């Protein structure tokens, strides 16, 4: 990893995030993870994607103790930087605002998270089963903690 990301961009990027009360969790060469309040996430994403030429690589969902962490990976290709915006969706809510209406590329990604982790994306035009088999029981999510293969018997 020879050259590092353009510093000025990271500064600008981090200032923007700090204004929205985001916290930088880890920062390595050319990539960083930032924790963002759930209400600020979608406007931030929209801003980065439309103004800063960012590209949504994918969304990762992780089942943690208090709920589900959603990690939005943004690639700033011009600046050799990958930023990961992290939000925590509480178990009691299990829902998140969908970004598909303005970013159609996120459609499959959100449907996959819906299938595997049970997060409901509100405003998604087609929140249907995508990658699990037809005989998979409703309400069993394979990537949640404590999932056992036996639970999924049809």
């Amino acid at each position: 990893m020879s050259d590092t990301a353009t510093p000025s961009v990271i500064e600008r990027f981090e200032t923007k995030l700090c204004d929205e009360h985001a916290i930088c969790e880890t920062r390595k060469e050319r990539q960083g993870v930032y924790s963002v309040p759930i209400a600020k996430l979608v406007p931030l994403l929209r801003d980065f994607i439309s103004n800063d030429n960012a590209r949504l690589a994918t969304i990762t969902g992780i089942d943690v103790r208090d709920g589900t962490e959603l990690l939005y990976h943004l690639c700033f290709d011009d600046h050799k930087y990958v930023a990961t915006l992290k939000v925590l969706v509480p178990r009691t809510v299990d829902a998140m605002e969908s970004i598909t209406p303005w970013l159609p590329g996120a459609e499959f990604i959100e449907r996959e998270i819906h299938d595997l982790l049970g997060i409901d994306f509100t405003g998604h035009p087609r929140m249907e089963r995508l990658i699990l088999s037809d005989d998979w029981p409703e309400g069993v999510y394979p990537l949640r903690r404590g999932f056992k293969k036996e639970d999924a018997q049809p």
Partner: protein
Amino acid sequence: MNWKFWSLKKSLFVYHVNAGACNNCDIEILELLTPAYDVERFGIILVGSPRHADVLLVTGVCTRQVKKRLQELYLQTAKPCVVMCIGACALAQGIFAEAYHVGPCVDEVIREVDPNAIIAYVPGCPPKPEAMIMAVVKTWQKLDELAAAEPKPVAPALPEVAGA
């Protein structure tokens, strides 16, 4: 010699089923058709309808969604039909054995509908094209044995094929 088995050896119509494979086996199967290996020399051709098939080439782990379709497919073929499990996944689920979305092994799935099915196994991840041709040769030998043994009931399984 039994003419049925003799002619079966000389002319194998193959139908390829991808039951959840990673493409490695599939591209190697296609490789067999191309000039480098050209299996049409031995009378082996790919056909478009399972009704015409003498050999079902099954690749992949047989996922939950695929299981029923694989059985249905096998029932549609005209017997005698050899099932050839290509690759470690089709053999014994390979690296995916513990995954949550895979069904039973391919041979179990087939045996469920036909206990006497003739099943050949080609190990390797993926098997080399040579190993697949070797598997065909071994299948011929097995067919010879079956021809000699007829009309006794068909032996359950083929020996493992060396290679890869």
